[in-house]
Structures are given as structure tokens and as C-alpha cells.
């Protein structure tokens, strides 16, 4: 990777001299997600939570595959046109991405960033295209409420009283196609609408933060410092003021983490006000019994793909920052009394005419 293509502006901030295009994206959402405020905006809806499969793990894999297939068909590309796929999920050994890639056939870079996987894989896809390593790359992620419950919490039929700080793992998948701008010009994709072009201009790799929160039922509080650190470093690295953004979309801090992020940013005299929105709060309506809000690798990806990117494409927004956050604990580290390390990765997308 040459220094001129991807400039490291300070630690972890990547400015792309030749910004890759965010050419297409696809969202596949479960039933509960469809009943939320963004219900009409998903590209595909899956009402059967098992998707006709024998296990929830297989259902999650199917969600993932269907998002990748959909982004290819929406963009008019074939799997053979794509050089790399960066993908991950929440399950042990990222089995969703790894197993699904058997049939997809695109060279895979498996990614684990818990719920930050969406922006982590998008960041890596942008980095690989910006550096000229790949002409086209896909970033994809999926999560399934039931498979996550099985792995992280309790058996599904076991009655458990949820806490007001608990978050609800979203069922869904999303895939994003990143293309080299020159490649896209020579072979124009049938864009989703004929609005402005979306470019990934810069990104910030997260630093692991740990403020000693130990409760896995309160991941919003654990992750807020990671989001704050990444947002502050992104502002510093990019030279943008917070007012330059129409939207800073975090995911998934929920109703507990969101005010904590505002508080941490206010300490640094940054006041994003209504620009700062959280995917965990946006995905579900308050009456959907999700307590503090949504979470899961798919949550921020779904909200980004169903709400944020279409608004950029329609010209309603010019610049957004996706800051997906992830809790990097495992059930075992929690049982051993360890606190929860968290991370957030930021990807800046701008719309240009």
C-alpha cells in the first residue's frame, strides 16, 4: 500500500486520496425489525425466523448470503467481478461469514468486531479499494436474535426477565459494495436511484477502550467511551468540525449509552445535538419491548443501509459518519469477572454531485 493512496493522518485515521465509491448496498431484515420505524425501507423482509432451516445458525447464514446476493443483483455485478469480501458476525469462529463464503466464491477476509463489524468491514473494504489492492470489495455482516441469545445468554425457551439496560440483538443482514471510482466510471452500475455519488473519503480505526463496565446487560454504557474516542479522533484527523456532518450514526449504544456519549463529548466541548443518532434507538419503536434498544452486528448496518445512505443518495444529506461500536467480551471472560473492552470504527461517507 503506497503512502500516497492511503495517508495515515495521525494514529488510525485514514484519508483516502482517491476515495472509493459506495456503489450499492442491500439490507435484509427480520420480522420484528420490519415492524419498527424503518420497516418500509428494507430491501428484503424475512418473516420466518428460521427461514425454513433446521437451526438458527443456518438461518443467520441464509440471511447473510441473501444480502450478498442482493447487493450483487442491485449493482448489476457478479461475484466474479468482486475481488474481496470483508465479512463477520457475532457467532463463535464467525461461522456465518466463513460458512456462507463457501458458496459465494469471493476471496474472504473474516472480520470480528462484535457489533462494530459493520463499520470495520466497510473500513477494510474502503482501504483495500483506495489502496488499489482491490477494484471492488464487499463488506457484509449478519446477526440473528435467536443464535445470539443461544451463544451469549440463555436457552430460548428459558423464561428470563429482561433488564431495562438490556439490548435486543437484531435479526438481519446487510452488504455494501465498494468500488474504485475509475472502475465504476468505465462500467457504470445501475445505481439505487440517480442521486449523487457516495464516496468513502476517510475512516478512523478504533482504539480499544475499557472504563471498567462489567455488566453484559449494559453494553451501551461499556461502548460509549469507544464511540467518543473514535469520534474525537476522527474530527481531529479529518479536520472537520462536528457541524460539518449531517449525521453521526452510532451503533448500538441504545438509550443508556447514547446520553453517556453525549456527556463524554460535552466534556470535550463537542455538542453534536440532533446530528448524533444511534442505530440501536432508531431500529425499533419504544413499544417493541427491546428495553434499551437494538444491538447486534446487523443493527447499525441495517439502519445505515435503510435510512442513512438512502438520504445521502436522495441529496437530503451531504456527509455522514458511521460509528459502529462493539463489545469485545465473551461469555467466558464475563464469567471470570473481567470488564468489557469495547471498540468503535468510523467511516465517513460524503455525497457528491
Amino acid at each position, binding site marked *: 500500500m503506497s503512502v500516497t493512496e492511503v495517508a495515515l493522518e495521525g*494514529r488510525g485515521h485514514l484519508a483516502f486520496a482517491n476515495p472509493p465509491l459506495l456503489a450499492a448496498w442491500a439490507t435484509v431484515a427480520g420480522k420484528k425489525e420490519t415492524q419498527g420505524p424503518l420497516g418500509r425501507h428494507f430491501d428484503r423482509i424475512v418473516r420466518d425466523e428460521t427461514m425454513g432451516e433446521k437451526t438458527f445458525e443456518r438461518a443467520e447464514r441464509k440471511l447473510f448470503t441473501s444480502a450478498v446476493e442482493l447487493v450483487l443483483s442491485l449493482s448489476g455485478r457478479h461475484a466474479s467481478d468482486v475481488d474481496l469480501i470483508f465479512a463477520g458476525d457475532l457467532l463463535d469462529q464467525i461461522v456465518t461469514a466463513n460458512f456462507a463464503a463457501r458458496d459465494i466464491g469471493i476471496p474472504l477476509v473474516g472480520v470480528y468486531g462484535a457489533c462494530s463489524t459493520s463499520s470495520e468491514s466497510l473500513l477494510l473494504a474502503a482501504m483495500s479499494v483506495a489502496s488499489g489492492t482491490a477494484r471492488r470489495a464487499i463488506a457484509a455482516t449478519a446477526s440473528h436474535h435467536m443464535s445470539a441469545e443461544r451463544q451469549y445468554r440463555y*436457552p430460548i*425457551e*428459558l*423464561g*428470563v426477565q429482561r433488564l*431495562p439496560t438490556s439490548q435486543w440483538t437484531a435479526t438481519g443482514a446487510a452488504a455494501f459494495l465498494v468500488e474504485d471510482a475509475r472502475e465504476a466510471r468505465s462500467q457504470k452500475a445501475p445505481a439505487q436511484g440517480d442521486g449523487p455519488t457516495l464516496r468513502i473519503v476517510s475512516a478512523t480505526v478504533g482504539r480499544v477502550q475499557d*472504563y471498567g463496565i462489567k455488566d453484559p446487560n449494559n453494553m451501551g*454504557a461499556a461502548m460509549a467511551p469507544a464511540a467518543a474516542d473514535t469520534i474525537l479522533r476522527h474530527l481531529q484527523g479529518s479536520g472537520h468540525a462536528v457541524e460539518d456532518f449531517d449525521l453521526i450514526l452510532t451503533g448500538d449504544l441504545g438509550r443508556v449509552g447514547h446520553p453517556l456519549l453525549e456527556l463524554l463529548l460535552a466534556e470535550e466541548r463537542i455538542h453534536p445535538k440532533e446530528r448524533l443518532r444511534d442505530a440501536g434507538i432508531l431500529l425499533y419503536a419504544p413499544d417493541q419491548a427491546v428495553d434499551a434498544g437494538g444491538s447486534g452486528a446487523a443493527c447499525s448496518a441495517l439502519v445505515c443501509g435503510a435510512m442513512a445512505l438512502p438520504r445521502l443518495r436522495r441529496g437530503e444529506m451531504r456527509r455522514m459518519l458511521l460509528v459502529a461500536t462493539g463489545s469485545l467480551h465473551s461469555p467466558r471472560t464475563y464469567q471470570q469477572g473481567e470488564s468489557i473492552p469495547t471498540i468503535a470504527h468510523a467511516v465517513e461517507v460524503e455525497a457528491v454531485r
Partner: protein
Amino acid sequence: MPSYSMHSGECALMDKKEYQKRARQVEPPRPIARNAFWAFLVGGTICLVGQIVQAVLLSTGFTEETVKAPTAIIMVFLGALFTAVGLYDRLTPLGGMGASLPITGFANAVVAPAIEFKNEGAVMGTGARIFQIAGPVIAYGLFAAFVIGILRYALRGVWS
């Protein structure tokens, strides 16, 4: 743009203890009164059903002494049945301990993982995981019985 320290180590934003304090302040309070009300209602209803079962058994000729085991067996069956048809996990979010604590809740804690791990096979799935939730109750229940047994022996002798 105020200069945020990029080079300091962890917890550059706020003191760890201070952050944890602030985090507790924004936590929504647990609805204790509402939870207690529903726990009473759900737990009370389960116990009422148990009482009815017992009354019916008594009328069929069981004595006060012999009625306990069949009542418990029937309640365990009902707990398992409601778990199997997917109703028990809807009762507990509302009833909390009111649904978990009666013997039906114990049945739920055994049957739920048994169903859950069916896909992982009869031995390493259902067999190995069936007591995942109830295991601690059984282990420490046995241990407590052992300790009490020893104490009773020490105080009163074996036969009295």
C-alpha cells in the same frame, strides 16, 4: 476543536470511577413495584393451580402425607408442557421470580436447554446441557442437604 489527547493511555476521556458513577445515573430504574405486583400475581396463580391439583388429589383418596409427591409431579409436568409449547418463556419476563421460583420454573429450567441443544445431538447436546441452568440448584441443593444431614446427625443422632 479542542485538542483531545490521542497519545495518552486508556481512560483519557474521564476518570474510570467517575464514568461508572455517571453510567449508573443514566441507567433506567428497575420497575420494582410493577415487577413485585406481577411476580405476586403470576407466582400466586401458579400456586393456586398447585393448590387445586392438590385438592383434587385429596378428594380421590390421597392423604395429607402422600399427596405431596403426585402434586409436585403434575406441576413439573405442567411446567414442562408450557415450556414445550413455547408459553413459559412469555410468562417469566412478566412474572420474574414469581414464575421462576415455583417448581414449574424448575421444570422450565431443565426442559428449555433440553430443547435448545437438540440440534447439537442427544449426547453432547441435550444430554450434556440439560442441567446447564438447573445444575447449580441441584449441586448446591445436594450439598446443603448433606450439610444439614451431618448437622442433624451431630445434634440428634441417626435414629431419633
